[in-house]
């Protein structure tokens, strides 16, 4: 991916060629155009979600927070080929750290965000030290186990509020601005999403992204070229944890309530599906995937009780599973990857 930026081997014709003649425009088209599209899409959400029937502004906030939380899976799963099914462990770590610091110790929400993100990153780094020593797919198993163990642990302690969780988190305020209602919080979260998308994209387009791809395509070739896969994978894992924790801390401050559901396996599944359905190799996939998942959840809640009296919300997870299977089999690069390929063919 990164290689095509610097060395255009093929000579494109048509519209792309005309753009190509202005070589300096290429980075603009490749980086600025998708970013601008993301910005426009995000700015449209408050208008659409407050007017189109089943959506609410809360869905919009959730969409953005889920997208932030899933962002780090792009380098981890899309590039390094490591499947994590425990991102909720980091989401929950961030959420609980923020809740404990702000409610029990009355510290500022910003400090809560910082500590939550650092704590999750540290947890991922320690896990990564042990888990990436050998090749293989332990990560998926270990991450599920971490989430489930944490879920059991937080239910046992008073500090974490037991089964009731922690409520009464203060609203986030920055320089005199209060982010207490859904719309203002949405704009804050959307800004975080745009910045985080650009940062993660920067990482993916760097040497590290290329190295991660090489490690996942052929670990032995990468190793014989002098690459030690463990630190590279660990970095991607920590980045994924940090993104999930950022989503979790913001969620805690938005809902002003944290309980064991922030550590739920279902959330990890949602995050994996968001990254995969949207497109594992593109940071914009996370936003598209989050839109799909939030829509599935919303429509399942609106329509399904009428269709099936049994197990109302459970049809939702069938839809998640089918979406995952169908996208992986029919559109392996996800919606964004597939759309980008189709666009390229059209423009030529």
């Amino acid at each position, binding site marked *: 991916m990164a290689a095509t930026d610097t060395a255009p081997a093929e000579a494109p014709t048509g519209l792309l060629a005309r753009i190509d003649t202005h070589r300096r425009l290429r980075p603009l088209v490749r980086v600025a155009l998708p970013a601008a599209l993301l910005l426009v899409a995000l700015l449209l959400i408050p208008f659409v979600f407050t007017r189109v029937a089943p959506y609410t502004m809360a869905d919009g906030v959730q969409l953005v927070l889920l997208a932030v939380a899933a962002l780090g899976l792009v380098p981890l799963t899309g590039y390094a080929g490591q*499947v994590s099914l425990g991102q909720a462990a980091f989401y929950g770590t961030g959420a609980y750290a923020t809740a404990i610091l702000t409610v029990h110790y009355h510290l500022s929400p910003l400090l809560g965000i910082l500590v939550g993100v650092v704590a999750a990153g540290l947890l991922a780094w320690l896990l990564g030290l042990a*888990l990436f020593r050998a090749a293989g797919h*332990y990560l998926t*198993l270990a991450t599920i186990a*971490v989430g489930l163990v944490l879920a*059991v642990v937080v239910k*046992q302690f008073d500090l974490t509020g037991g089964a009731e969780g922690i409520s009464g988190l203060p609203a986030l305020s920055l320089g005199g601005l209060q982010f207490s209602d859904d719309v203002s919080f949405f704009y804050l979260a959307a800004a975080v999403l745009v910045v985080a998308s650009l940062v993660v994209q920067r990482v993916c387009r760097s040497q590290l992204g290329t190295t991660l791809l090489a490690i996942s395509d052929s670990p032995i070739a990468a190793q014989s070229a002098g690459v030690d896969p463990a630190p590279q994978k660990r970095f991607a894992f920590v980045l994924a944890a940090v993104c999930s924790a950022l989503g979790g801390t913001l969620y805690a401050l938005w809902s002003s309530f944290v309980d064991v559901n922030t550590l739920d396996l279902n959330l990890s599944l949602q995050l994996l599906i968001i990254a995969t359905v949207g497109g594992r190799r593109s940071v914009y996939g996370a936003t598209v995937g989050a839109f799909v998942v939030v829509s599935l959840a919303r429509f399942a809640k609106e329509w399904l009780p009428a269709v099936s009296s049994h197990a109302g919300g459970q049809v939702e*997870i069938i839809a998640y*599973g089918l979406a995952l299977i169908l996208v*992986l089999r029919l559109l392996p690069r996800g919606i964004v990857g597939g759309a980008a390929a189709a666009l390229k063919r059209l423009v030529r």
Partner: protein
Amino acid sequence: MSELLQYVVTGLTTGSAYALVGLGIALIAQVTGVINFAQGQFVMLAGLLFAVLEEHQVPTVLAALAALAVTVLVGLALERLVLPRQAAGRTDQAIMLTIGASIVIEGVAFVTIGTEPKFARPFTAGDALRFGGASMDRQYLWVIGIAALVMLAVWLVLTRTRTGWAMRATAMDPDAARLSGISPSRMSMLVFLAAAGLGAIGGIVLAPLQSPDASVGIGLGLKGFAAAVIGGLDRPAGAVAGGLAVGVVEALASGYLPSSQSGFADGIAYAVLLVALIARPTGLLRRVTGERV
């Protein structure tokens, strides 16, 4: 003392069911390189179907056979329809596909059967047997006996039949196996059938002891993973030993933890899995990664 004996007996019983689940996971991982996240759903599906059929007055043997047959068909559909034909190259994709299949199976079970747990009768009626101060439900004997028989059968197939040799050859060196005329696709299908069957038997024998509902699959699958990881996934016997170990540790933990801490017992199997993964990661899939060259 009799308390300890009681916990060990209980642990060995549920442990034998976990061993069956872990054995299926280990077989699939060895032969195809895929970690099958839907394995726990095989256990749930068979146990739940068995209990539902029993509720509808279907004779025990018939109910067990029907549950086994449906589960094996689901395993076949997973391998033939969901997984890509060349699974070996893209293990991360195959893992995600089994995750997708797992939640589809769970969701379908929720929608068709509902969320309430179902109750199955023990295979034979009668009082618990007593020995050395411990009491032993008759179902315990069924679980341990059937699990032992099934494991013996798996061992015989793997070591005494041409199909078993072909499976082991594929696990050791898929390229060499293919060169000597063994079809990897056929081996993959057979091993998924076997794993679905093993999971189903585990689910059926466990149903009278732990009333199954549609949500138990993931937990049972993870206990199977813990079993297989502790055993190292190298030898099928390892998964069996691992399963028994997980069962006993779990029973001891829930027995001896003070009631204020009893919530921790839920997490014991997952903690065991985590510790095994952190302490001894080379056990898992060592052979498979070597084969990808």
